[in-house]
Structure formats: C-alpha cells, structure tokens
C-alpha cells in the first residue's frame, strides 16, 4: 500500500516542470557517455530542446483541458496564468539553446544546457508558485543555475574570461543580497499572517505594520529581479559579461518568472484594496522607462544596450499592471510575449554575426549588415523597430495596449512617462537600423562568415512572430482572456 499525502493529480499538475527538471539529468549522463566533440555538443542541445518541446506540449494540453487546480495544498497553482508564463519560459529556453549551438566549446555545452534547463524549471516553479516557500525555491533554483552559467566561458580570450567571471561574481553577490531582502520580507509576511500561503496572506487587513514592511522587502526582491531602477545596477554588467546565450536567456526567463510572482502577489494578495502598498513599484517602473532608455543612448555594446533597453521594456510591462485591472494583466502578458520574441530575435542576430570563439557584440559589427546579410539585417530591423514600438510590429500594438490600460486605470503619469521613454528609445534603435543600411565602403566590412544554421531558426521564428503579432495581434490576444 502507498500512503501518499498528495493525490496523483498533483503530480500531473507539475508534470511539465518535472520534465524540464529531469531532462538535464539525462543531458549530464549523455555528456558522460558520448565522445568529445560535435556529437556530445549536439546531443546535449537536441535532448534539451526535445525535453522543452515535450513540456510545451504537455502545457498546451493542460491549457486546452482546463485542468486548472491548486496542487500540493496551494503550493503550486496550475492555471492559465501559470501555463502562459511557463510557455514563455519554455520558448525562451528553446531559443537560447539554439544560440548555444554555434559555440565550438563542447566541454561546456552539456553542463550549460543542463543548467539552463534547471534555471528554466525554477522559473516555471515561480510561474505556478502558490506560497512563499515555492516562490523562494523557484527563485533560488533559477538564480543559482544562472550564477554558474554567467561564468561558464572556456577557450576565450583572457579579457572575455575576466568579463564573464566578473559578471558571475557581481550577479552572485548582488542577487543573493536582494534574495536576502526578499527572504526577510517573506519572514515578516509569515509573521504577520502565521502562514506562508498566498491565499492566507490575502486575509490580512490593510494597515498591519508588519505586513506592510513584509510587502516592502518583498517588493525590493521583485524590483531587483525585474531590474527596475534603482535596483537595475547589476543588469548591464552581468548582461555584458555573460555568454551571449545566457544573456538572452536571462533577459526573458528571470523577468518572466519574477513577473509571474509579482503579478500573483499583486492580484492574489494585495488586490485592489492595498493600492498604497504598491505605489513604489509603479514609481520605479516609471523611472526605469526613462533611465533605461537614456542610459542606452550612449551604449556601443549590443548586449549592454539590450540590457538597458530591457530595463525600460520591463518598466513598460510593469506599468501595464498599474491599477491591477484584469485588462492590464492580459496586456502585460501580451507585451511580455512580444518582448520575448523581439528581444530573443535581436540576441539571435547578434549570435549569428558573432565570431566562433567569442561573440563580438560591438555595434560596429552591424554597419553594412544590410549589404552583407540582407535577410538578417531585415529581421534585425524588425526586432529593433518592434522594441522601439513602431508599426507594423508587435511592440507597437503592445505599447498601444499598455497605454490604453494604464490610462484606463487612471495612471496618466505612467502613460506620459511611457511616451517620453519611447521618444528616447526610438533614437537608440533607429541608430542601429541606419547603421545596418547606410552604404559603407566595403573596406571597413569584415569578411562574410558562413552563418551556423541553428540561430537562424530562432531568428526566423521570432521575426515571423514579431510581425504577425503586429499585424494581427488578435491571434494571441483572444487566447489571453481565458487566463485565470
């Protein structure tokens, strides 16, 4: 006989998560078995992608079957909400793995893939987390794996090595410090309510000082992971230093995971009657829109530039939640999806034009791209226009939706900050577009390297999605309303 405290349905609920979490074990075993070189490298990536696709399939099945239920005593809440975020995480992980492939660095590919999947698993756990414990667990699984990934560069120039390791150290110290704040906040929340369950936190009446302080510290952790000014300081350095696929991965997955936690906390715990407890987040979001874009103005390293632009983009997304309206949640998800495609697409392009050993993400690598790789340049142009929020791209419609919801929620000032931020960002991105297209004397252009196929898939998919969502967003938008 088997006396188990939880019904099997609970395990079915976390099936995708389980898949993503166990695939790395297989990758590691294969890594031990297979001979060095290409087979080992490709196998690792292939298995990883296969696992992710399987997880995605299960997620979709769950979504269509509407088997939405709390599992493990509200420890993990399966629902359209968690599924949507999990799918975004899975997609991001797949694209990032595709970028891993061109790196000749076969000794590191296996572990990298494994860690990436574990990290994704952490994010998926956060997406469904129903109590503080699972939130913390997911957050740490996500982060711990990323600390390692940031430093995982081998066979690169000493400078690259130095950068990568430095980024790992900075990320480690700052992030665990932020986790400390969040953890203490959780302790206070637990103290205020006597329970770690978000559902139970809801019961607390407004104006409980311990609860308020708990929220405050919790929000610090949130703001740090989302990279909202002034908790954004870690992002540029870490993004620039980390290997490109990892940067791409971080730019979406950490955000998606923490956004899910934030949204659940916002809608599930604070609701509409604790507005005062959330104002600081709106403020930092507004700051991010401005500071992120302004700082991006003078960047000449693509990864760093995208880090700053990411800060601003997250500001937009958080702004969509202002007023905690269901509409806002929907639009935030929409923009997050759009952001996933356009941002990862841009990263994939950078990966494609990079050299074998180490990526050069300096902007000058883009000058004359239009003549070297017309298709690639066109795709990149679309990603950048989308990030800038120009039609006909997903970014444009996403911004319009966010504007609509913030204004509807009565946060005019956020809308204006968004418009101002966009004004600045247009320059940032258009500059690169022009660099790609304005004819330059071929003397300056580096020789055309054969492009490895894998990132092409990512670029193609992202480009199609970015444009499709821009031209006919209803496709995605009409699915979202079913999210609970």
């Amino acid at each position, binding site marked *: *006989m*088997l*006396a*188990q*405290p939880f019904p099997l349905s609970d395990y079915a609920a976390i099936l995708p998560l389980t898949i993503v979490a166990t695939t790395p*074990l297989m990758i*590691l*075993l294969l*890594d*031990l078995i297979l001979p060095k070189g290409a087979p080992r490298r490709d196998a690792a990536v292939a298995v990883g992608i296969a696992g992710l696709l399987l997880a995605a399939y299960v997620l979709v099945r769950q979504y269509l079957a509407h088997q939405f239920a709390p599992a493990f005593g509200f420890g993990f809440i399966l629902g359209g909400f968690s599924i949507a975020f999990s799918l975004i995480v899975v997609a991001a992980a797949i694209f990032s793995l595709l970028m891993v492939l061109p790196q000749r660095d076969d000794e590191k590919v296996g572990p990298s893939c494994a860690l990436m999947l574990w990290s994704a698993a952490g994010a998926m756990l956060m997406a469904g987390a129903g109590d503080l414990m699972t939130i913390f667990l997911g957050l740490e699984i996500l982060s711990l794996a990323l600390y390692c990934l940031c430093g995982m560069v081998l066979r690169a120039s000493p400078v690259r090595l130095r950068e990568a390791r430095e980024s790992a150290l900075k990320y480690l110290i700052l992030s665990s410090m932020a986790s400390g704040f969040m953890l203490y906040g959780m302790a206070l929340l637990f103290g205020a309510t006597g329970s770690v369950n978000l559902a139970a936190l809801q019961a607390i009446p407004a104006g409980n000082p311990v609860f308020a302080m708990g929220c405050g510290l919790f929000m610090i952790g949130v703001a740090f992971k989302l990279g909202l000014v002034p908790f954004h300081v870690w992002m540029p350095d870490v993004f620039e230093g980390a290997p490109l696929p990892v940067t791409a991965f971080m730019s979406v997955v950490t955000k998606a995971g923490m956004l899910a936690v934030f949204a659940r906390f916002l809608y599930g715990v604070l609701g509409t009657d604790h507005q005062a407890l959330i104002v600081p987040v709106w403020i930092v979001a507004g700051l991010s829109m401005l500071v992120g874009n302004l700082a991006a103005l003078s960047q000449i390293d693509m990864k760093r530039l995208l880090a700053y632009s990411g800060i601003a983009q997250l500001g937009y997304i958080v702004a969509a939640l202002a007023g905690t309206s269901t509409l806002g949640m929907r639009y935030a998800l929409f923009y997050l999806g759009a952001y996933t495609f356009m941002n990862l697409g841009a990263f994939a392009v950078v990966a494609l034009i990079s050299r074998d050993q180490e990526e050069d993400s300096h902007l000058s690598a883009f000058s004359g791209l239009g003549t070297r790789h017309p298709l690639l340049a066109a795709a990149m142009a679309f990603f950048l226009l989308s990030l800038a929020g120009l039609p006909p791209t997903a970014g444009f419609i996403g911004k319009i939706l966010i504007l609509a919801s913030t204004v509807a929620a009565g946060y005019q000032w956020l809308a204006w900050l968004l418009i101002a931020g966009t004004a600045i960002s247009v320059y940032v991105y258009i500059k690169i577009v022009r660099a790609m297209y304005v004819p330059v004397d071929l003397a300056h252009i580096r020789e055309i390297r054969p492009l490895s196929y894998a990132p092409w898939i990512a670029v193609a998919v992202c480009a199609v999605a970015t444009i499709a969502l821009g031209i006919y967003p209803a496709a995605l938008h009409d699915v979202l309303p079913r999210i609970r």
Partner: protein
Amino acid sequence: MTPYGPVAIYLAVALVASLAFCILPGLLARKKPNPVKSEAYECGVEPTSDVSGRFPVRFYLIAMLFVVFDVEAASFYPWAVQMHALKLFGLIEMVTFVVVLAIGYAYVWKRGGFQWR
C-alpha cells in the same frame, strides 16, 4: 529570574572557559627557554615559508563538494524522523532524492572533481 538569565549564564560560562584556556597554560607551565626550543618545530629543517600560506585551488573545490553533499544529506533528517508515518511514499521520495544526488556525484567523479591533481 528574567528570561535572559540562562543566556547571561551561558555567555558568562563561555567567556570564562575560553579565557581560562588561553591564560592557564601560560600560568601553569614551567618556563625554561633555550634557543633550540624557541625554534619553529620543523624536524630540524629551517622554516621555509610562514605557516599561513595559500591553499591550492583543489582544496576549495573539494571543500565545496563536501559542503554540498554534506548539507544535502541533512535533508534526510526530517524523513528519518517521520519515516514510519510516511511509509512507502516517503521512501520513494527519498530514493528519488538520492538518485538525483547520485547522478550529480557520478558526474563530478567522472569529470575528476575529486582527484587531488
């Protein structure tokens, strides 16, 4: 007696004890210094470097692995306490846990994480 009584006593005892162990030898021991005695104990060899040298990186690696496996092992404790209540379910859970640890262990081993050099 205030709630802090025990704490105070504990602190006092700890302080006294530790101080005592520092001071007593100096007081009790008989002192007959000579140059040979006051040399560093190096089996007759002159000291080459100071004792507090830097450890090889290996040391840290082993230390880390030890920390990980050691502390994860601590997770057995709650299961061990409730083993009979959890019955087969708990056993399965624990086995899975061990398997996962084992795979990690195997990986480290195969990659030569434990070789000193």
